């Protein structure tokens, strides 16, 4: 199982990387961690003429903490983000999701941005990016632009990134919660084996007014149930409106599982996915709620 023959460049500047992609005339492919692209190459499911290796772009190696957001550069490894105090403090949902990705050995190599951009419909990070309203920073021949998620995702493994464009970073909005509000998150996943692709995964982030026992902001999402990750506005509204939120967790989970229309495949029927979705949504809501009061994984 060997990839087709391809050319290779390792540019030292973003401009050179974009030029290399442009010269490849749609036959170029960016490689950073390569933990998704490598298998696709080896199985010859992709046959690029040129690999543009961005691992020498040192300016893309940083996790930058701003007042309102955290910016993660394109060659920051998943393992690096997993160990980052900034991620732990400012992006609790990302911190919760990272350990579910593959294994330590793949997280040592795979990147946060690469996973967001690869848009695998059962991957963890596109779901996190969706729940946090992340923004993808893109550089192309026409200059710089930004794409917001969910608009960035067009379907199964498809984004609006053009073949001659490079995603240089993902910005995750992370404004500090107002005083008295605790932000807490939870992630849960059902997979056939530890580290395998999710059959279904659920994410929840709650901003909780602990004194009033109310949810002031809610993010609820699922992956593995459609071609793109999904968020559930009606569920989020119900959580914000609930006088005693834990009492609506079960009904919110039920509503979410009614709303989805998953496909059946070899590993799980649509009905099973729906059932798992209900259980996992209920579980992440309970966990996030309890963590808000325990002061765990909040800022």
């Amino acid at each position, binding site marked *: 199982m060997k990839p087709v*023959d391809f050319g*290779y460049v390792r540019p030292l500047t973003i401009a050179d990387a974009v030029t290399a992609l442009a010269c490849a005339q749609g036959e170029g492919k960016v490689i950073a961690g390569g933990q998704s692209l*490598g298998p696709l*190459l*080896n199985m010859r499911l992709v046959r690029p003429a040129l690999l543009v290796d961005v691992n020498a772009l040192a300016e893309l190696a940083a996790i930058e903490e701003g007042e309102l957001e955290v910016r993660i550069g394109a060659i920051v490894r998943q393992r690096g983000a997993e160990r980052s105090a900034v991620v732990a403090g400012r992006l609790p949902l990302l911190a919760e999701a990272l350990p579910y990705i593959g294994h330590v*050995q793949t997280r*040592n190599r795979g990147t946060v941005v690469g996973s967001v951009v690869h848009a695998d419909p059962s991957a963890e990070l596109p779901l996190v990016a969706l729940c946090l309203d992340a923004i993808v920073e893109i550089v192309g021949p026409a200059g710089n632009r930004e794409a917001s998620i969910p608009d960035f995702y067009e379907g199964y493994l498809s984004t609006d990134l053009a073949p001659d464009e490079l995603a240089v970073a993902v910005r995750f909005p992370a404004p500090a919660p107002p005083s008295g509000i605790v932000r807490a998150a939870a992630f849960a996943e059902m997979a056939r084996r530890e*580290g395998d692709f999710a059959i279904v995964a659920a994410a929840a982030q709650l901003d909780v007014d602990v004194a009033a026992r109310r949810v002031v902001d809610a993010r609820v999402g699922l992956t593995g149930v459609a071609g793109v990750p999904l968020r559930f506005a009606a569920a989020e509204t119900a959580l914000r409106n609930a006088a005693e939120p834990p009492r609506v967790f079960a009904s919110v989970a039920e509503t979410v599982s009614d709303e989805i229309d998953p496909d059946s495949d070899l590993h799980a029927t649509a009905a099973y996915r729906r059932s798992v979705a209900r259980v996992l949504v209920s579980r992440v809501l309970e966990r996030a709620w309890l963590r808000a009061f325990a002061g765990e994984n909040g800022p």
Partner: protein
Amino acid sequence: MNDYAISVIVNGVTYERRIPPRRSLVDFLRDDLALTGTHVGCEHGICGACTVMLDGVPIRSCIVYAVQADGASITTVEGLSPDGSTLTPLQDAFVECHGLQCGFCTPGMLIAATALLREKPDPSADEIRDELGGNICRCTGYQQIVEAVQLAARTGGTR
């Protein structure tokens, strides 16, 4: 396509070779350098048999291309023992606990477990299973492998 000149340090020795960019790191180690201790299993990043250390951290050498390792330092199973002739406490523990049968997964297990013990000298059974979760073994049922890592933690870790 054109070959690419690379310089890689493997187990402390610098090698300079010209290779096609599509050559995986594991094929480079085995076929170009004749370091056949690293095994190649699934060739798509699932089984963990090809795990080596790249600049000190364990990675899958079947889904890293050799050209990407240009300038990097690699440790394979042949490089675990400092003198190349004795076994490390971890390797001894694998023998002692019968942590292998056919031995196909063992080089990857040893690299992954060595990395774990460097970071956590006294890991719990759960931590060992989590760290080695990406290394598939079809013989042992994993129990003896976990016991071997625990024994190594008691007898001297990676040194």
